[in-house]
């Protein structure tokens, strides 16, 4: 009998165990469901944090943002920019920057932010951040692809919007501006916003950037395949001028200056902490102990970072008399013979841009200091200087910054707003001397250069844009000089439709033949240091004998990946020329 009792008990246990269906309900224990989220302003903030890593900043083993201009005519990278070469003839199948993940992420915020309880001011501010980021995300897509589908909600796999058509670029830009206006209206001003978060001034700065970009794009691409459907350039230029003017007239930002014209400009970029610098509107902080650092100090100014400043950029610096080298009496070709003299009597920003003999590289406090003698022609190509003009801007001399570097990375600085203002007004034809004095001339003053005076602008016989006015030419020159190596040049060239600046040309460097470096590098000149018939370093001599092949009918916009065209069932059309 006992045995049957045992067995009955066993069966009973099984029956009782198996009746409990809840046993099979297993929910995550270390993740939150969206229903449990979206309650407090802090939830908003935590979610928005992810977008802060999308700004271009210093990162990893590279020259950081100071070599972003490798994609332009400011720097001649060892790894030549394939877009300018025109070799990218193939439409990629996938990737290609057609990334809508951030759009989805920010739309998810804007769908879930309505029932938050807490400080009204904080909620408004975070919503403002969200509009700011959506504007920024879309602007980056517009720059790359032009016309775009505009998606303002999170889609599912069965959403019709997956097959949306591309809207004309200025319709998209109008939506971007609408977002920015909401951001400007909601964001806290700098003095009450948390440090390291977006504030109202940054939204205004972004608005001035975007409007200037779109205004000049529509103006200079008018009549081409890249033209906007309707040319609203005047409207955008006006908005650009207004946004920058608001920032200028509110007076919350000032340029960094200690009055030392030979060092201020360079010192601006090598600080670890920008908290006290009003000019720096938004920046990224690094902290070794937190594991966030970069290696810019390993390259700049210690070596060439695998690139070099181009002759074209160097030549665009005015002489101290405010005149271009083509006409200034201060300039003679003799000065080209040495890195030590090429900066003589030039805009002091030039000597803060490139290394000259005697420049401090690593300041060991007087013992074993590392001083610049020669460009790193003998180094390997990862760190070689390609042009002889070795980057000095952004180079810290602090020996502790050589391995893991904590130099901050500037994201928005006020100088750009000033340049935007002047350019927008000039393009509108309404630039006054007063406008110049409250914008560009502030930069000139900091740099120790004479002011730009309407009416007494000399015409540069080598001006970059012969078909444009001297004023526009000088404003563009000022922009190139002030923002050199800050990653703005490519955008400028594209929106100005400036392919004539580089198509069919090769980027050159220092005139090494006949210079004081010739003897030192005699063994390299020819086989390793390629030079042109005039003795200028010609790094791309063998690679692109016929110069850059950028195709103006195609390369102004990137192609949409083939796979996306296929998946759209024909609603997406390819960009011109591809």
């Amino acid at each position, binding site marked *: 009998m006992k045995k049957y009792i045992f*067995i009955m008990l066993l069966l009973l246990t099984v029956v009782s165990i198996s009746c409990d269906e809840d046993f099979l309900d297993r929910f995550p224990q270390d993740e*939150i469901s969206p229903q449990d989220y979206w309650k407090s302003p802090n939830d908003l903030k935590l979610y928005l944090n992810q977008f802060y890593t999308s700004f271009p900043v210093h990162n990893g083993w590279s020259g950081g943002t100071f070599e972003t201009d490798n994609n332009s005519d400011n720097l001649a990278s060892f790894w030549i920019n394939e877009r300018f070469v025109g070799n990218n003839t193939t439409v990629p199948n996938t990737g290609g920057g057609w990334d809508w993940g951030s759009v989805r992420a920010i739309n998810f915020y804007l769908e879930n932010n309505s029932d938050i309880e807490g400080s009204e001011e904080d909620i408004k501010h975070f919503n403002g951040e969200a509009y700011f980021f959506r504007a920024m995300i879309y602007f980056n897509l517009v720059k790359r692809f032009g016309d775009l589908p505009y998606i303002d909600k999170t889609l599912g796999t069965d959403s019709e919007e997956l097959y949306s058509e591309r809207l004309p670029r200025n319709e998209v830009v109008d939506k971007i501006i609408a977002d920015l206006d909401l951001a400007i209206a909601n964001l806290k001003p700098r003095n009450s916003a948390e440090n390291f978060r977006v504030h109202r001034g940054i939204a205004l700065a972004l608005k001035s950037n975007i409007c200037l970009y779109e205004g000049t794009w529509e103006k200079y691409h008018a009549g081409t395949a890249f033209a906007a459907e309707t040319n609203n350039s005047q409207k955008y230029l006006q908005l650009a001028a207004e946004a920058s003017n608001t920032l200028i007239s509110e007076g919350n930002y000032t340029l960094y200056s200690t009055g030392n014209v030979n060092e201020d400009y360079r010192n601006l970029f090598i600080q670890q902490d920008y908290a006290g610098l009003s000019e720096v509107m938004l920046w990224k902080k690094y902290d070794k102990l937190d594991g966030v650092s970069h290696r810019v100090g390993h390259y700049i100014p210690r070596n060439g970072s695998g690139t070099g400043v181009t002759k074209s950029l160097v030549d665009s610096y005015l002489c101290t008399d405010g005149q271009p080298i083509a006409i200034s009496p201060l300039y003679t070709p003799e000065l080209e013979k040495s890195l030590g003299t090429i900066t003589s009597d030039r805009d002091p920003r030039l000597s803060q841009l490139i290394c000259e003999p005697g420049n401090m590289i690593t300041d060991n406090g007087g013992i074993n200091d590392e001083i610049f003698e020669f460009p790193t022609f003998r180094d390997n190509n990862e760190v070689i200087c390609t042009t002889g003009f070795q980057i000095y801007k952004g180079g810290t001399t602090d020996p502790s910054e050589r391995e893991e570097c904590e130099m901050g990375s500037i994201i928005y600085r006020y100088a750009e707003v000033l340049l935007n203002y002047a350019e927008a007004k000039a393009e509108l034809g309404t630039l006054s001397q007063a406008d110049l004095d409250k914008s560009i001339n502030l930069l000139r003053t900091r740099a120790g250069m004479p002011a730009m005076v309407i009416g007494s602008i000399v015409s540069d016989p080598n001006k970059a844009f012969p078909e444009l006015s001297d004023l526009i030419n000088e404003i563009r020159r000022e922009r190139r000089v002030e923002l050199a190596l800050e990653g703005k040049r490519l955008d400028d060239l594209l929106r100005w439709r400036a392919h004539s600046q580089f198509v069919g040309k090769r980027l050159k460097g220092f005139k090494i033949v006949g210079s004081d470096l010739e003897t030192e590098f005699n063994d390299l000149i020819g086989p390793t240091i390629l030079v042109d018939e005039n003795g200028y370093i010609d790094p791309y001599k063998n690679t692109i004998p016929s110069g850059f092949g950028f195709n103006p009918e195609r390369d102004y916009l990137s192609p949409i990946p083939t796979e996306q065209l296929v998946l759209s069932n024909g609603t997406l059309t390819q960009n011109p020329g591809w």
Partner: protein
Amino acid sequence: MEIKKLKMKISVFILLFSIFQITATTVHSKTTSINVSVNSNLNEISIDEKQNLTTKNSPINVTQTVIITGVVSDASGNPLPGVSIMIVGTTKGTDTDFDGNYTIEAKKGDVLQFSYMGMKTKKVSVANSNTINVSLDDDSSALEEVVIVGYGTQKKVNLTGAVSTVSAEQIESRPVSNVMNAIQGAVPNMLLSVGNSGGEPGANMAISIRGVGSLSGNDSPYVIVDGMPLDNPNEINNINPEDIANISVLKDAASTAIYGSKAAFGVILITTKSGSATDGVNVTYSNNFIFASPLKLPEMMNSVDFANFFNLSATNGGSGKVFTDEVMARIIAYAADPVNNPNTVPNASGDRYQQYTGSNANTDWFDAMYKDVVARQQHNISLSGKQNKVKYFLSGSFFDQDGIMEYGDDEYQRYTLNSKIDTEVNDWFSMNANIRLSKTSIERPSYDRGLYLHNIARRWPVNGIIMPNGSYSDGSEIPFVMDGGRYNDDNETTNTNLNFIFEPIKDLKVTATLLYRNTQYIYSNHNAKVSTTGPAGNEIINRSWNDVSKYASKSTYLSPNLVISYNKSLNNETHNFSGVVGFQQEEDKYTNLWGKRNDLITDNVPSISTAVGDDQTDDGVGHYATRGYFGRLSYDYQGKYLIEFNGRYDASSKFARDDRWAFFPSVSAGYNLAKEDFWNVDQIGMLKLRFSYGNLGNQNVSNYLYVPRMPVNTNLWWVTDSGRPNYTTTPGLISSDITWEKVSTTNFGVDVSAMNSRLSASLDVFTRQTDDMFGPAEKYPGLLGTGAPLSNNASLETKGFGLVVKWNDEINDFKYGASFNISNAKTTVLEYKNPNNLLNTYREGQTIGEIWGFETVGLYQNQEEIDNGADQSTMYGGVWFPGDVQYKDINDDGHIDWGDSTTDNPGDRKIIGNSTPQYQFGLNMNASYKGIDLAMIWQGIGKRDLYIGGPYMFGVQGNLWQSAGFVDHLDYWSETNTDAYYARPSFRSSWRNQETQTRYLQNAAYLRLKNISLGYTFPKTILETLNLSKLRVFVSGENVLTFTKMADMFDPETTGGYWGSGKIYPLQKVLAIGMNVQF
């Protein structure tokens, strides 16, 4: 459709059965022959399967009781303890004792039946002698073999499913690192392939049964050890290979059905050794001492060739030379006279030695970074025995596997402990407990293993190992692996298995089982500061920071089971029924905790407590549960007609309530033709046809897929006033109705045993279809902004076969045997939503493993060929040169391109090969003569194509930092070597010559002598003086010979690597000596 067809097939089968049966009974019943061979000298009658002794008239018929004594031994004369001896036709019986002796009271004319697991049963009739010594032969044939199947055992002869077995002998005494190595190639349709960890100490292989089953990759088999399911197949390597008594591999749905939810892609059942059947204790000790060396290493160019090669690649790419004339002169001088020349010089500022472009050593880094030979050892000891009603088996093992890294030693250790106790409490209740412990640990440098392997080929030959001042090169990994801190992990698993077995009435067995597993995994990782000494005696900081992190996880598995089985034979074993019903429930939980701090006060004491940086912590918790009811009903008629039904009703917590439960049935049938009376082909003792069809569910996906979740993350890559912020991110899309994958298998099989069981063969042909498969996320327009969720969106079909042929024979003292297996599986996508037939994802009709690529015309020999050939500027807009690859204009449109990457418009691409390993085979051969034994195991893949990119294959890549220079790469095109294999080397845009194409497609088929071993078993006469019952010594080699057509820098088994093809820890060639002693 499919089911209708199936039903028809079944009816035809049944019809055939009936016809055969009628024929058998009407025509042949009267001609039944009985073959009895009587050897009167030995009083021994050998009887084969279909003889029925009770129908035979005994020649002697006297009823006198005598005491019979004797010794039972195996073929080589070793006494066999625990042999069961029965008087046929009675319930009288006994067992042999520890020395193989037995005593039994019998009558003259009685027939004694001697049976012992793994031996052929022998029957001997009692004649005049009172001493009957019997020697039993190994049952290497199939007929009496008992096979472990789901929740029971079955005679192999009665199997209706597709089951293969691996015996202990195939595993024992091999100098392998783990069980996986030991079973590779042993079973048809079970493929073990080396993963990205290669031959690293403690590395696992990937196991698949019958090919690709699921595109999500979750198609690994279910492994069960003594009733305890493993978490994943890798844990198989925690078992001591010497503990294994037997492995069954269940392949078709009918065999695996009873295991339900995790068994859709096959089951590997491992049974470990048990206590002996007779009183006494038996001690076995075995060991081996292993010498291992890297199996295959690429050979670097010498420094002069290398420098020229890189210079050429650079100038071909349009830039200046990599090595200046000055450095080149140093390279040449050093290569000619390394004694009187330094291997590098200081840089201009004198604080570092030049590396790379400024250095002039001559180093083969593969040679430098690996040891030539490394010693390892393995020890096993086991006790098995019986005392009264308690049987026990205890074993322990230790394996110490040193790695082959030259600097910064790496090591894997494994300890196992296995204990098994069976107790008969009374005549209706017994219990057994099995506790299996394993502990494995790895210790190695904390420096990333993948990066280390990646960097070996990136260290140029011109870089030296030791600098002129005696310091290790700061441009190599050596300082990092030697001084950069250590990584340790420790994995402890305890498997507890308690069985309570009730037999309230005869043939009814109720088994209640409780399974509990506890796994703890801990690692600690220390990155130390690293510095070297510069030429001026200055300190060079290679790593200026340090940190330490620790991780601990614990997972538990708890599963109560209840199984009731009933067996009944009627009419003198004419009708045999058996049935099983059962209940199983599983609960699996894990939790882990991770912590890290930067900035250790000293690297001598690496602990979180001694670091002063910010705390970083994270944790994880998870769980899942399953529940299932199952049953089996089988019936056979005289062992001739066999039929079996299985069913299982399963639920998994991984699916929402409404999608959770599913029922999976299966059926199988067999027909043993040779048992028919009409069967008169004496040479064939068994000829069995088998058929099975069944459905199974698979739930092998991540937990909580149907629940929307918002990820919370720490340490954003952004610093604020309060450190690095936390952040949340967007929930992914979910499939709220995700449910079971349904896997159905149809299997046809034939088993043959012939020539007195000397020859046996078994063939299975199968079709497995996976429906509602967890396919990879479908492609949607990028505007979606996220991946599509995993859903039941695809269907796959795998077709294949498996064949085993075995031969065993003995000629006097010479015994020999061979077993050959070959199998194949080919998988096709039946359904997958890809209406545009994009090539970069799955699509209907696609054969898994397809390689799409260009067809190569050859290398351009001159400008004329470039000008006259198809336009390749659509592929690459730069200049094409003689020596570049010329692709074929397959679609004849005048230019070479990728089309829109769909099957409709693939550009100039086509299917050029298939990367699925096909026709895998294994060959086992053994022979023995008077104590000497020799065995070989060959294993290989019959057909496989691989396209391997990367620097190991091509040498030169886009830039010089990702390029390599091996001797093989010297065969490049130049005007003096126009017949070259490789294109003109060039750093820029080298990809243009390296697109997937026919020219560089590799034939990855191979044949490998996995093991060869030679052993000697000492004869009894010597053993007696040593007081031992067995002593065998052996010498054995692993990975001895390889035949392949692969490019020379690759081993055909290790083409992978975490950082790219070939950048993998090499497998090892092993030579071992060892012994096996029984006391």
